[in-house]
């Protein structure tokens, strides 16, 4: 591992984490991107902004959520003492709302009245539609038509909340394509529109800003673990699509060398088949405003990703993760669709908690390594969202015979 004094200083003033990150956007957007950067720098330093953010997290989102000792999963894994960080208990059912609260306050501060966002699983779309309802703003959500089909409950939720859901049919009609159309909308509506990006990707300052808003996850884990066990956790495990729940958990611990940190990508059908594991199967390139690891061919054409989980179905990853991968501070591994589905069932049956398919990837990897670890090893899994939205996908994955047995 490359030895650095700190892993928490990035990005530099140009938005670069090592060679990753930056601002690779059309010139039409650059003045606005620079305004967002300035507005966020001002807001970050403004105690009134921070106070309002914290107040809404407490009163509206319901934070802090528990760091729950999962006794039966611990027992089943047969080793490390496993804790679940219960982001699924947030209002709207996932970690996405943390970032949305922060950015809607920023949009209001910038005088923007129209909000656009991309969504994959629909959790970010629901969270965005929710804060738009709360602040009385117009809301347009771009969502791939493939994802609309597999996350129908979230589509209805967005519409109930007053958002317009625009289906995207280009490419594989998933998260990447939704982000393309959101960027096209932004270029066409720069004057009144704020793009509320849902993950630690996109042009600077988004990767750093979204990380900052999500860092409440790791900050709470630190305090909760100190209260429960009197010491820091020994390991952290989180799933990664763009990587915002993982970055939120990891960032406060990056400079604690005793804490082992593991990010879990989606291996889809397997790493030799269709998957979404950008760090494992990709190489550095430029897409959606930043340089990062991407699934691409030799000509630099972006490959279609695949994951059973719509939220992880993206051929890129946040640039700070690419940097943490290259420095070696964080280990990145991957879990297949089948392994995630098995972990989904295991958590549901043993703990009475239905995890999101995204979060099930983290649970699956934890299950692989926990058994070999000592019983006093404190492991935190980020349960980034709840799985109600996934029941149709799971029913399809398990097949009619199995389902027949349940009914």
């Amino acid at each position, binding site marked *: 591992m490359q030895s650095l004094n700190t892993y928490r200083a990035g990005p530099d003033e140009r938005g670069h984490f090592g060679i990753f990150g930056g601002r690779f956007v059309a010139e039409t957007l*650059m003045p606005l991107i620079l305004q967002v950067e300035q507005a966020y720098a001002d807001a970050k330093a403004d105690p009134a902004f921070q106070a309002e953010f914290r107040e809404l997290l407490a009163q509206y989102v319901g934070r802090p959520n528990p760091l729950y000792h999962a006794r039966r999963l611990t027992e089943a894994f047969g080793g490390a003492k496993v804790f679940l960080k219960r982001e699924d208990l947030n209002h709207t059912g996932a970690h996405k709302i943390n970032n949305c609260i922060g950015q809607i306050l920023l949009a209001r501060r910038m005088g923007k009245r129209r909000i656009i966002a991309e969504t994959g699983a629909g959790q970010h779309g629901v969270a965005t539609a929710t804060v738009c309802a709360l602040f009385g703003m117009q809301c347009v959500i771009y969502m791939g038509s493939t994802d609309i089909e597999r996350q129908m409950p979230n589509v209805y939720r967005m519409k109930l909340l007053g958002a317009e859901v625009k289906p995207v049919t280009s490419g594989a009609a998933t998260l990447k394509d939704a982000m393309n159309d959101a960027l096209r909308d932004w270029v066409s509506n720069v004057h009144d529109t704020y793009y509320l990006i849902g993950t630690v990707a996109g042009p600077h300052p988004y990767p750093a800003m979204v990380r900052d808003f999500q860092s409440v996850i790791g900050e709470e884990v630190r305090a909760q673990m100190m209260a429960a066990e009197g010491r820091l956790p020994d390991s952290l495990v989180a799933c990664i699509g763009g990587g915002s729940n993982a970055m939120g958990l990891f960032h406060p611990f990056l400079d604690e060398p005793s804490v082992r940190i593991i990010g879990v990508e989606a291996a889809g059908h397997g790493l030799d088949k269709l998957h979404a594991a950008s760090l494992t199967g990709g190489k550095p390139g430029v897409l959606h405003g930043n340089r990062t690891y991407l699934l691409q061919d030799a*000509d630099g054409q972006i490959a279609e990703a695949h994951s059973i989980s719509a939220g992880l179905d993206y051929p890129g990853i946040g640039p700070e993760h690419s940097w943490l991968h290259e420095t070696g501070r964080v280990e990145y591994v991957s879990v297949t669709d089948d392994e995630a589905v098995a972990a989904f069932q295991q958590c549901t049956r043993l703990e009475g908690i239905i995890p999101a398919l995204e979060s099930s990837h983290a649970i699956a990897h934890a299950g692989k390594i926990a058994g070999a670890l000592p019983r006093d090893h404190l492991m935190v899994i980020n349960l980034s969202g709840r799985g109600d939205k996934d029941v149709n996908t799971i029913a399809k994955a398990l097949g009619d015979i199995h389902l027949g047995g349940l009914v």
Partner: protein
Amino acid sequence: MSRIKRRFESLKAENRAALVTFIMASDPDRATAQAVLNGMPTAGADIIELGMPFTDPMADGPAIQLAAGRALAAGGSLKQTLEMVAEFRKTDRDTPIILMGYYNPIHAWGPEKFAGDAALAGIDGMIVVDLPPEEAGELVPFLRSAAIDFIVLTTPTSDDARLPVVLANASGFVYYVSIAGVTGTGSATGAAVGEAVTRIRRHTDLPVCVGFGIRTPDQAAGIARLAEGVVVGSAIVQVLAETGTAEAPLALVRDLAVGVRNARGSQD
């Protein structure tokens, strides 16, 4: 003197604007695209923009998105794009060719090697949509060494504070994107374009070409009275998509050329 500079000097002597025409390399296939490309100068194009196909054209409207998709499905690539230019150069040594597209294929090729290979193929300029001045430093020095112009985009959002930053890297000409939007959608008013071109000229002596939303010979003539060049892209791409043959887009180029050539004369 570069081909681009020579072309603008001779057009200035003729007192007319340049007609800049766009097609996507390999759309709908290599042979048809090559026929359109090779036929463009005779049809009246003064400068040609050749699109580099990319899976995720984030600043393009439906017409050019679909063109990129057709090109890639037909085996289009950055390599094939350079091959098309090399083929074109066998018969035309005077018409400037500008490549236009997104950064990732160049990034994958390697910026330094790409600049050299592009120059060998006979390319005169590059427009890289997602490489603003803040990031252009990783490509521009290599282009400069290879005597390829970096054509910058200015937009309705480029104010007097932003323009000097954008123009610092510029050579060849300046491409004014006349609407805040994606390609092939709305059109700006003549008054708005005139005001913007005047403002850009306060910051640079380079020729200004105006594009986005220009579809007809009349529109082209209107812009030709205001700027040194008129760029037409989506309209040509759409005609090609509808017919699938080289003849129809070349006929449109001929009509556009008449519009541009008569523009200033008809005003006198």
